[in-house]
Each structure stands twice: as structure tokens, then as C-alpha cells.
């Protein structure tokens, strides 16, 4: 059967699966997740059915707290229920997330991960929101690309129904949620194959019903609270296997093979990075370039962050690794280290029969700060030092605490066969739309395409559109299952646009020397408008 | 200019109009209003011993009920500074009234236990009461209790309080004694500084629908002035104690009548509840007008001028008048 492709953004990729696998969606707008909710609402209005033939009910609530309440209620009443959120919205859902997980209720929350407002609000991407729900009992499954956002939405739904443990399926806000890419779509048949209807019926059977009434949400005293809290442990313990099982089933149908922890790079790597999210793509591209220079480097890509399966993690990490750097896209002031680092440290410290590598950790990419191949290289360079910084930041100049690594801006990993373009637009002049169009044209006619849009916070201002196409143009479906090379050809090629042209400075410099077209739209890139005051995509009141 | 001044239990008063124990005296504001309205002295509302006991118990109970039994709600009420049950609040009001107003404050006490009468009277004195009015409210419902027992109870209470407090003590009583004049005399002998005629007994009503006993209290009317009028007239001049008329004062007419019968002071609450504290000034003006219109130079001159001993026909106060009343009633029967 010919598989269908579409050029869509990460939000749509996730929503398209979420909508088709649920009966109720409780929504509330928050950047950068709003598109998912908007699409669900639109499809419901269009009476688009889910894979079982019923039209999901979509209801907008008065807050994410309210949306989480509806989700909890609808789940308790036996409906497959989802929601879409980010950042502050996810924080508002936390109280209900504890309940939903504590009651072993299958559900998936799709999150376009975004910074949490601290000293300032940021509508842009990092992992500080999802890191805040680590203790809720939800499983955390991370997608690194638009394709993964699509695939993992399905894996999360399948795994939650099998395990009864609810999932947060997340991907990087803007970086992935707003990235337009050509992906291979999962058909209704794929979804039905993954999500067994018997599990849907089992979920319904557990519903609160006056026909067989029970009491839930009891209050318990010190005599029993602790014991009964422990009763759900086996369910959480079973999650990694079930996720792996779902991933395998997906692979068997689609050829796209994932694991809770994926490894990419030299099988005998000495220096290894560990991270999750879109940054992995940059790391892969960098590793390719470094390996071409003979360096023994690799990256462990974390997909299933919670429950953290130390056994699988250790299995993914080459035993040859002598020094390991964990990159966290969040900041926990006062903590001994960032969360992913600590999980890795614990796994290594408890590992049997292997020599623990030297471990360092750092922060990157807060509030959508770009992560470039040069930065990845800087981390590898640090790993190569005799006495590397144990805690660092990368991507900024921290001349206060001195945490930052120095980055060589001259390091580039451009594919010769990539066409990149940067378009500058003024607010509402149609630049973004035209670029999306171009990407779709390339995607459907020429090959693999990807676009990314950099926005100002002003409602009407300068923006940049990055468009990129991989060359040579493919006429056949990519051989996803054949290994990482081809996937890299797509993802890697596109991510070079994302990374290389992520800064105006680099784009300007590169475009004349490479086969990169640069176009301008509007009068001048220096023309900025200060007319609007609030950020374009900040939370609506 | 008519001299309105009078003395009540030795307290010199500017005029004979006194605010009797009533709800207006429950707060300092009301007490001040009474003074501003023209009261020559103010009797505070009654301190009920059992009410205090009951309130203390109830407040204790109500503020504690359910407390310390459930981990989330160890109590249900805030602790409020100044929230006191027991006599403290009353005493505080007496103290503040004493400081705030110029006229004498007479505290009223309704005890229930023997100890209670004395203990609270002493406290009232310490708080600054110029005098104490004992409001002996007592319904002898026990059939084994004789009239003599009842009378002795009044005398005992008075005696006990009298010997313990330095200020004048009045006793407010009802008319229901077999020989009221004799009872008055014995109270006088026992040291009463004043007799207040009369208190109004609680006469409950029935709710026929619910078949329940319900409290019923109505304001007094001028018609009720006649019984005190009778006994004031009888007692005037026969006792050492001051006499206070209470009940049924509505207009200057009743004030004048009481004075002429022999009252040293005239007390009212009902009219003030009906017309406001300012009514006192009207009563006073009316009294003055009447006295001057009838060429009296002073209240003293008028007091008791129609008492038992002074009226030309003393039988009017006694049986003869009753016979006449019955006869005149027939003739005045309205025609239909």
C-alpha cells in the first residue's frame, strides 16, 4: 500500500493522531500548542470522525486547570480524552495530573514544550515545563522532529492504553511545533493496529457508572495511604517494555524504528552526548561531520524520559564511552544539577560491571536559544579535555558565573546538496505564508523540505523565514528502515537549515559561498516596527 | 421657672424622668442617646445571672463543638480580642457609661442563685454603678412554696445585697403579693433604698398551630399605669425608701399622675422605644408646662399631693372606689 505524505508542522502532526484516537478533547489556547487545539476544534466542527467512526467532542475551557478537570472527568467516565498545552498551562494541569496518574487512567497530553515564565515570560521553547511534571506519575515521551511528533502521538496513545499510565507526549515548542516538514502519515489502519479496541473497551469498563457504582478519589488516613500509594508501582515499571513494544509494532508497519533510547554515532564512541528533543538532530549532524574527521563521538537520544529505564539507557550507551555530557534544556536553580543529568548520573552510578565514564552536564537552548553544530562541537571539545567543566552552559556568553563554553563560530556542517533560503518579511506581508507554500510545493513535487520561522515578539514586525530543501530530489519514499543514513539525509539536511541559518549573521555569511538563495521581501531587514507592544504569541488572557 | 429637681435614693436628680431598664441601654451609644435625650438617670438593662451562666456555657460549647476532632478543622471560630462572655461585658459597659455620661447609672441585676446576687452586685458597684436595682423576677411555680416563702426570698435577697454593697439598692417588684403594702413596708425595713413599681411579668403565649409555648412581650400602655398609681398613692409618705413609678408612661399625663400619687421618679422605656430617646425632653417639657399651668413651683410641692393620705376621699384608693367603678362602668357601657 502506498503510504501518504504531507507537509505539515509538528502541531498538526501530533494533533492529527491525537484527534483520531480520542473521543473528547478539552482545550485551552496557549502558545505554542494552540494550533493543536484549533485543529481539533476545526475537525470536530467539520464532523471529521476518529478511527472508530465517532466525532470527537471538543470543548474549550476557562483555563488549563479547567481543561485538566474536564480531561480527568471524561477519563473517569470512560471516554478517551486528550488535551494540548504548554508552559504555564501544563503547570495548571499538575494537580489533576497527579490524580489521573494515581488512578491509573490512560490518557495522553500533547505538549509543545515551552519555557516557564521566571524573571521574564518567554513564549519560546525549552523543557522547563515538562520537567515540572516529572513527579506526577505521567510517562514523558519526547519527540525530536515533526515525523516523531506524529509517530509518538500514536505510540503514546497505544502505550497508555496498554499500561494504564498516562503520558505526556512532548516536542520542542516552535522548533518542532511550528516547523513545517514533509512527513509520512499514519493511516487510520495504522492507528487501529496500534491501539487495540479491546483496550478501549477495558478503559470504558473501568468508567464510573451508576450501573456498577464505586467510590474513587477517597481520602485516606496514615494507616493506609502509603501502602495504597505503592500499589500502582508495577504499572509504572511495565511502561518501558510496553513503549518499546509499541515502537516495534510501529516499525513493523512503517519501517520507522524507534527505541526508548536511541543511539547515533560511532559504535565505539569515546565521547557521548545525552539529550532529548530537537537538539538531537543538530547533534546527529555534528556527529556526522566530526566522524568524517575521524572523531569517535555519538549521541544517546532520549525518547522515553519517564519512567527512566536505566537498563535500557545503559544498553544504549556504548561501553566505550569515556566521557559523557548530558545536555538539559531547563534550569533548576539550587539543584545539584539539571534533571536529565541526575537521572543519567544515578543510572551510571548504579550500573553493574562497567567503569563509569566521566560525567559532565550543561544547559542549552533556554527560551528557544538556538543550538548549532558549533555548540555541539564545543561540548565534544570540552569532553576531550583532561579537566572539563563539570557544569556548563552553551550558547551564551556567561561572563558572570563563567559557566559558558567557548564556541567556534567558524564550524559549519553544511550539506553540499542542500538549498537554503532566508526570507525577511514584515508583519502580515505574506512572507511566512509564501514560504509555507514553497515548502509544500517542494515537499510534494521535489523532495524533502523544511521550513522554520523566526518571529519577533511585536505583533507586527520583522520576521525571518528559513526554507530549505534537500537535494538530490527523491522520487521514491525514503528508506526509513534502512538505517540512520537516510533519515539523516532528510532530517540532517533540513536541520542544517535550522541550525546553520538560525542566526542572521551566519545566513548572511553562508549564502554567497554556498548554494543558498537569499531573498528579501519588504524594504529592509533593518526596518522594525515598534507599534505593537505585547508578544505575538503570548498567552491570551 | 418650676423647680423640677428631685432625689431618688439619695441621688440628687435634675428632674424626675429616668430611663428604665430596656434595650436602649444595651450599648454605650444608646446610653449616650438617653442622656442627650434628657434622662435624669439611667437604669441599665438587667444583668441576668442565668443568662450569663447560660451564655458562658453556650459560647463555650458552641465555639468548641466539633473542635479538636478532625485534623483539618481543629476549631471553627477565630479568637477575637474583646469577645467575652460572662458579666465582664456588662461590667465594661457600666464602666464606660460611667465615664461617658454625667447622669447616674443604675445597674440592674436579676440573679438566680444566692451567691450570684451578692457577687454580681458587688461587681456592679466596683464597676461604678451609682445604685443597684434588684429585679427580682421570680415565678413561684412550685405549689409547695407558700406566700411567706416567696416574701422571705425577696427579703433575703435584699438583705444579702444591702449588707454587701455601699451604694443605694432599689428593688423592683411585681404587685402579686397578698398584702402589697405590708410587703413594701418589710422591704423598707430591710433596708431598701427604693421601690420600683412594677416590673412586668413574663406572660408567655401559645402558638396554636405548632402547639408550642412562645415568648410574648408587648410594650406597656397608659392603661397599665393605674395599678402602680394605686400603690404609689397608698405607699407615699409611709416609707423611708424612695418610690419609682414604672410602666405605662406614654405622655406627660402619666408623669404628672405618678408624681401627684407620690413617685420620686418616673421611669419609662416603652415610650422611648416608640418615640426615641428625645421623647424624654417632651415628657419633661409637658411636666413643666402642667406644673406651671397649675401654679406649682416645684416637683417637690406636687409630689404626693394626690396620695392616699392627701386626697379628700381616701376611699377612692380603696374598696369604695371599686364599688363606684363598677357602678360607673354600667352607666358607661357603650350603646349599640
Amino acid at each position, binding site marked *: 500500500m502506498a503510504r501518504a505524505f504531507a507537509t505539515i508542522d509538528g502541531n498538526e502532526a501530533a494533533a492529527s493522531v491525537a484527534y483520531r484516537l480520542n473521543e473528547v478533547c478539552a482545550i485551552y489556547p496557549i502558545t505554542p500548542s494552540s494550533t493543536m487545539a484549533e485543529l481539533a476544534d476545526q475537525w470536530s466542527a467539520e464532523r471529521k470522525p476518529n478511527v472508530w467512526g465517532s466525532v470527537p467532542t471538543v470543548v474549550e475551557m476557562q483555563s488549563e486547570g479547567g481543561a485538566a478537570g474536564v480531561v480527568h*472527568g471524561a477519563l473517569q*467516565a470512560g471516554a478517551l480524552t486528550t488535551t494540548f498545552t504548554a508552559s504555564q498551562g501544563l503547570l495548571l494541569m499538575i494537580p489533576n495530573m497527579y490524580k489521573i496518574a494515581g488512578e491509573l487512567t490512560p490518557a495522553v497530553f500533547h505538549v509543545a514544550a515551552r519555557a516557564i515564565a521566571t524573571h521574564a515570560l518567554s513564549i519560546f521553547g525549552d523543557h522547563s515545563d515538562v520537567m515540572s511534571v516529572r513527579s506526577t506519575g505521567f510517562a514523558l515521551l519526547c519527540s525530536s522532529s515533526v515525523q516523531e511528533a506524529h509517530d509518538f502521538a500514536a505510540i503514546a496513545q497505544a502505550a497508555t492504553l496498554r499500561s494504564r499510565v498516562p503520558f505526556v507526549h512532548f516536542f520542542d515548542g516552535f522548533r518542532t511545533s511550528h516547523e513545517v516538514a514533509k512527513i509520512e502519515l499514519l493511516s487510520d489502519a495504522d492507528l487501529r493496529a496500534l491501539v487495540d479496541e479491546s483496550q478501549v473497551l477495558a478503559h470504558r469498563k473501568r468508567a464510573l457508572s451508576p450501573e456498577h457504582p464505586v467510590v*474513587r478519589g477517597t481520602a485516606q488516613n496514615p494507616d493506609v495511604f502509603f501502602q495504597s500509594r505503592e500499589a500502582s508501582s508495577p504499572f509504572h515499571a511495565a511502561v518501558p517494555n510496553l513503549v518499546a513494544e509499541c515502537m516495534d509494532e510501529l516499525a513493523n508497519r512503517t519501517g520507522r524504528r524507534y527505541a526508548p533510547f536511541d543511539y547515533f554515532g560511532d559504535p565505539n564512541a569515546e565521547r557521548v552526548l545525552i539529550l532529548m528533543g530537537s537538539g538531537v538532530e543538530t547533534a546527529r549532524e555534528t556527529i556526522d561531520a566530526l566522524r568524517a574527521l575521524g572523531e569517535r563521538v555519538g549521541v544517546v537520544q532520549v525518547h522515553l524520559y519517564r519512567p527512566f529505564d536505566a537498563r535500557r539507557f545503559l544498553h544504549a550507551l556504548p561501553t566505550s564511552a569515556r566521557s559523557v555530557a548530558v545536555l538539559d534544556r531547563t534550569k533548576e536553580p539550587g539543584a545539584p544539577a539539571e534533571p536529565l543529568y541526575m537521572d543519567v548520573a544515578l543510572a551510571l552510578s548504579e550500573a553493574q560491571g562497567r567503569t563509569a565514564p566521566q560525567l559532565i552536564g550543561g544547559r542549552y537552548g533556554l527560551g528557544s536559544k538556538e543550538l548549532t553544530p558549533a555548540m555541539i562541537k564545543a561540548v565534544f571539545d570540552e569532553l576531550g579535555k583532561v579537566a572539563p567543566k563539570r557544569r556548563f552552559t552553551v550558547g551564551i556568553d556567561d561572563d558572570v558565573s563563567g559557566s559558558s563554553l567557548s564556541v567556534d563560530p567558524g564550524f559549519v556542517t553544511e550539506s553540499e546538496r542542500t538549498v537554503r533560503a532566508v526570507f525577511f518579511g514584515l508583519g502580515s506581508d505574506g512572507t511566512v505564508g509564501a514560504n509555507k507554500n514553497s515548502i509544500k510545493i517542494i515537499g510534494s513535487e521535489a523532495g524533502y523540505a523544511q521550513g522554520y520561522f523566526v518571529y519577533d515578539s511585536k505583533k507586527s514586525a520583522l520576521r525571518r523565514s528559513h526554507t530549505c530543501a534537500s537535494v538530490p530530489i527523491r522520487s521514491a519514499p525514503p528508506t526509513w528502515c534502512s538505517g540512520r543514513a537516510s533519515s539523516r539525509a532528510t532530517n540532517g539536511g533540513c536541520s542544517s537549515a535550522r541550525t546553520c541559518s538560525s542566526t542572521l549573521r551566519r545566513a548572511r555569511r553562508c549564502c554567497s559561498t554556498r548554494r543558498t538563495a537569499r531573498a528579501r521581501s519588504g524594504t529592509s531587514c533593518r526596518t522594525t516596527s515598534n507599534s505593537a507592544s505585547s508578544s505575538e504569541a503570548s498567552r491570551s488572557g | 421657672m418650676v423647680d423640677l429637681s428631685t432625689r431618688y435614693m439619695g441621688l440628687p436628680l435634675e428632674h424626675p424622668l429616668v430611663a428604665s431598664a430596656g434595650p436602649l441601654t*444595651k450599648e454605650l451609644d444608646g446610653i449616650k442617646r438617653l442622656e442627650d435625650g434628657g434622662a435624669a438617670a439611667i437604669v441599665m438593662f438587667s444583668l441576668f445571672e442565668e443568662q450569663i451562666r447560660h451564655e458562658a456555657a*453556650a459560647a463555650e460549647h458552641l465555639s468548641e463543638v466539633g473542635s479538636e476532632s478532625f485534623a483539618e478543622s481543629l476549631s471553627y471560630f477565630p479568637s477575637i480580642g474583646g469577645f467575652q*462572655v460572662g458579666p465582664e461585658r456588662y461590667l465594661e459597659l457600666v464602666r464606660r457609661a460611667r465615664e461617658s455620661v454625667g447622669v447616674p447609672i443604675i445597674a440592674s441585676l436579676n440573679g438566680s442563685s444566692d451567691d450570684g446576687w451578692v457577687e454580681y452586685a458587688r461587681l456592679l458597684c466596683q464597676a461604678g454603678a451609682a445604685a443597684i436595682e434588684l429585679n427580682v423576677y421570680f415565678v413561684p411555680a412550685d405549689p409547695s412554696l407558700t406566700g411567706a416563702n416567696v416574701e422571705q426570698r425577696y427579703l433575703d435577697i435584699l438583705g444579702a445585697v444591702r449588707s454587701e454593697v455601699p451604694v443605694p439598692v432599689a428593688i423592683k417588684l411585681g404587685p402579686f403579693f397578698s398584702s402589697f403594702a405590708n410587703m413594701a413596708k418589710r422591704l423598707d425595713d430591710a433596708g431598701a433604698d427604693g421601690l420600683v413599681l412594677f416590673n412586668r411579668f413574663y406572660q408567655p403565649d401559645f402558638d396554636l398551630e405548632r*402547639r408550642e409555648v412562645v415568648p410574648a412581650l408587648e410594650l406597656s400602655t397608659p392603661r397599665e399605669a393605674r395599678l402602680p398609681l394605686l400603690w404609689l398613692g397608698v405607699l407615699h409618705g409611709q416609707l423611708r425608701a424612695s418610690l419609682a413609678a414604672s410602666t405605662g408612661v406614654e405622655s406627660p399625663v402619666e408623669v404628672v399622675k405618678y408624681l401627684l400619687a407620690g413617685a420620686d421618679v418616673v421611669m419609662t422605656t416603652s415610650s422611648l422605644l416608640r418615640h426615641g430617646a428625645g421623647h424624654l425632653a417632651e415628657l419633661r417639657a409637658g411636666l413643666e408646662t402642667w406644673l406651671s399651668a397649675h401654679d406649682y413651683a416645684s416637683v417637690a410641692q406636687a409630689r404626693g399631693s394626690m396620695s392616699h393620705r392627701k386626697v379628700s376621699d381616701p376611699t377612692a384608693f380603696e374598696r369604695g372606689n371599686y364599688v363606684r367603678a363598677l357602678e360607673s362602668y354600667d352607666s358607661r357601657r357603650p350603646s349599640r
Partner: protein
Amino acid sequence: MIDAGEVARRAGLGGRTNTIMQTCFFAISGVLPREAALAKIRGAIEKSYAVKGREVVRKNFEAVDLTLSSLARVPVPEAVTSRRYRLPLVGDHAPPFVREVTARMMAGRGDELPVSAFPVDGTYPSGTARWEKRGISRVVPVWEPDVCIQCGNCSLVCPHAVIRAKFYPDKRLEGAPAPWKSAPIDARGFPEIRYSLQVYVDDCTGCALCVEVCPARDKQDSSRRAINMAAKDPVVAAERENIQFFESLPWNDRSRVDFSTVRGAQFLEPLFEFSGACAGCGETPYLKLASQLFGDRMVTANATGCSSIYGGNLPTTPWAKNAAGRGPAWSNSLFEDNAEFGLGLRLAADAHLEQARGLALELQDLIGRELVAEILGAKQRLESELRAQRARVDELKKRLTARAGPRPLALLSVADHLVRRSVWIVGGDGWAYDIGAGGLDHVLASGRDVNVLVLDTEVYSNTGGQASKATPLAAVAKFSAGGKSTGKKDLALQAISYGDVYVARVAFGANPQQTLLALREAEAYPGPSLVIAYSHCIAHGINMQHGLSQQSLAVSSGYWPLLRYNPAARASGENPFSLDSGAPRTRFREYAYNELRYRMLQQASPTHAEELMKRAEEAVTRRWATYAEMAGRGG
């Protein structure tokens, strides 16, 4: 040994045995020299109770003396000599989970239970409170059949569902135990039918609300009502026997009971029983009534608070099921999200109903066209219609079970929704007025068929009486210790402003019939409904026995006007707003000053209290005028 309860009673301390037990401890423990300890206790009493008045101090002193004279030595034998064994806490007929888990918790041995004893997902069985016979009251109501007019009031107001009624053919009397009481039913044309009222004496808390509400008086002795409190010990054995017989009588056929009257409602089985609420609770009668009316179709979202604690605190819980195994399914999500949680329950039910209807149509040839048409066309408003629908759905399920295949299975999984489901969102004022206000507002604006019951105690009762926006002007509460200086939010008017929300304000103590009517109308209304229920509470500082008369005063003073706003009335051209209580005929202060929450301020700062009281009285008058105007409008 000491009978501390008796000593407390003699000393006038009511149920407070603290001083007595403290005295005992120091008297026999030898921790301090006896006299020194007693002096310290007296000092402590003086200090602790000085603020509460001289009387309290005196009584406690008395209690110390009485204790010392009442304390008796009991010799403990070297070996156990008793031949009596403790009876198991629950009988053999209890379900296994109750016997093995619940009973151990009840016995205070929950700590010994291992992890494996517990449900993995927090799901617990319904109706476990009936196994916990707490026997906490020494006085219980005793029914007098000769005086009783069978009005059902006592049964309605009973906060613990302890008073129940059944009628039955007189031939059933043959098997009745000797102490069984009955009377001919007070209805014409049924000479062979008997009526019995049963008091569950071991579950009674002794609140006496039933006695307060009883309108019947013995013709010879007006102090004797049709139900009177009496010592439990002399009657307990007989009543236990009676209860057993009472339970052997079937519950009356719901479709033969008149739901519209209090008299009729007493014959409906309560599916909320024996909760852990305070004696005399003003909230639980509403829940019990709802459970009687709709319990077998009911799903309840319960906000955290008193109602979630007496409703869902282990070991035993009051939400129960009937003989057919049906009853309210209950859950508590959080404090702040209850309305939304309830909306979720509704959305899921609606989604599944829609699926069920679609699948039934799709499979109608398989199931039978006639049955499908009947099911899809059923009205389900009256109990008889609901009963018929249940029978049809049972038949549908029977026919489906015989068929294999994913579609019939799918229909089976949602077929129960074809019986109209009643979603209730229950919580207190802290939830509805404050923390959950945004969500409640949103849910009321959703147009969905949910029923919201606000148990308004006017404070955060569960956490100990803190002020909420439901706390009235002039009342003292924690966090409003100086008296609340702003008025109570008019939640009813807020909801009415939407125009399509059914709204009622009720007070069962003032007008139980109106309460009943409002609950039924709210449930029948096919959109959002809000019932705001006056709930007297220990946090008001009242003797709970007077809860009902306080409700009456709240209504008669115009403070709590009874109203119903039924948008459905518009269809017939009527004014949706009806005022069900008369113009104020008593003063607000006459109601208020019966309660410690108002009185405290009056005593602590009379001038300020008076100022607030005047404003409160003005507010009552003003609001009444608004309501009267609204009630006077045309349709």
C-alpha cells in the same frame, strides 16, 4: 476507673471530659506529687478558661473535685479471666473486601495491611458505611405510630439516613418480631396496607432534627410528638430486631411512589447513608434526598471539602447501591476543578450516548428495529418511563451479548448510556464561590446537562470556618475576625444572568417541599442547573438541633429568599423567575443573633457590629426588592 462522662455531666461540662481525665492521670500516675499536680491543674484551668468566663472555670474546678471523689481502684487479675470474646466488627455476610480490608481499618489495624490488599487505582467499593455500626449516641429517636401522621419530614431531614419508611401489605406482619411497630397507611382506599418507620439506632448521631421537625402532637400531651428522643439502651435490642425485619421488607416500587411530595420521597431508598458528617449536619439531607430521587442513575463529582470527607474518607463511605447493584458512582477530583470534572463526566456520557445511538441504528436489523426505535424515542422523564427504558436496554444488551463482532461489542460498551444519566456536581461554598468559581461559571455557561448542588455553609467548613465569598456581611469567621464587611455574592443572580441556566435557592429546614421540587426540576432541566442549598453548620455557632428553625428564620427574614428560575417556563410564556418565600416578616437580626458567628462581634465590638448589622439589614431589604421586581415581571 472512672465514669468520666458521668462526672462531666454532673459537673455541668457536657461531653467535655478533658479536665477529668487529666486529673485522673496526675492523681494516679505519680509523675508529680499529687497535691502539686492538682494545684497546677487548677492553675491551668484558670488560665485556659478565664476568657470563657468565671462559670466555666468554676465548673472545671468542680470537675476536679468530683473526679478525685469518683476515681475508683480496679484490681487487675494476674491472668485473663473473662470468657467473653470480641465479636468481629463486621458480620460474615459482609463482602470479602469489607471483611478483609475495610474491617481491619475500622479496627484501627490498617497499618498492618500490606500493599497487595489495596486497589491499584484508588477504586473502592460503594456502600461500606452500613458495615460500621458506630453507635455514637446514647439517645435515639423513638417512633410513636399512634401520633404519627406519616408526613415524611423526619425521614427527609435526617442527616444520616437513619430514619426510613416503607409500606407493605398487612399480611407481611405475620413474620414481624414482637416489638415491631406499624400503623395503617394514611391514604384512602388502602385498608390492607401498613406503614412502618424504622430508626437505625446504631447509626444515629442523636442530633434530634427529626424531633424538631415533627409536626404531630399527641392530642393529650403536646410535649409528646410522633418521634421523640429517648435513651438508647432500653430500646436497642428491640430495634435491632426490627431493623432486620425492616430490611427483609422490599423497598417500595419507585414507579408507585409519588416523587413530588416529601411524604412520597420517604419511601425511596437512600443511597447515601450513615456518613461521617457532624450530628445534625445541614448538608447531608440534600445529598441523601438527591440519592433517593436519582441515585440509581447518578454520577457525582464532589469538590474537596466536608462533603468529600464525609462522602469519601476511608475506611467506610456512605455512597451506596441498591439491591440491583445500582447507585451513585462517586468521585472527588480536586477542590478547584470540581465543576470541570463534572463537565468531563457529562461530556463522556454524551459522547458515549451519541455513539450508542449511532451504533443502535447501525445494528438495528440485528437488534430489532422496533426495540431500537423505542429506545431511541424514549422520553425518560417519569420514573415509570425510566423503568421501561431500563427494561428495553436490558433486552438490547441481552440480544447483543448473543452476537459476536466488534460493532455489537462496541455498542455493549456504551449501551448503559441509553438510560438517561444524571450528572451531579456537588460542593461547598468555598469551591463554588471562590476557588472553583471560574470553572463553575464556565460550566454553567456550557449549555450541558449538569446539575450543580452548592451546599452553602457560608464558610470553609472543612478547614475550620474560614470566610469565603459566601460569608455574609456582619458575620465573624476566621480570616474575617472583625466581621465580614462585604456582602455575600449573589451566586443565583450571576447564574440567572445567563438566561438558560436553571437556578434555585433552597433551604430544606424552611420548606422541604420546595427543596424537593427544585431538585427535581433541576434534574429534569436539559441544560445546566444550579441549586444553592442553605446548609446550617457547626461553624455558625448554633445548637445544631436548632438548625431547622434557623433555616426558617433565614427565609422568613428575607435573608435567604427561596427562589426558582426555570428557563423551561419561558416556553409556556411564563415568567421563569418565581419567588417561593414570602416578603420578610421577621428581622434579619432576630435570625442572625441566634448564631455565635454574629453574636461574637456584637459582644466584642458592639458599635461596629451594629454598623455592619444595619448594612446587612439594608442589603436584605434591597435584595428582596430586586427579587420581588423580577418575580413581578411577565413571561
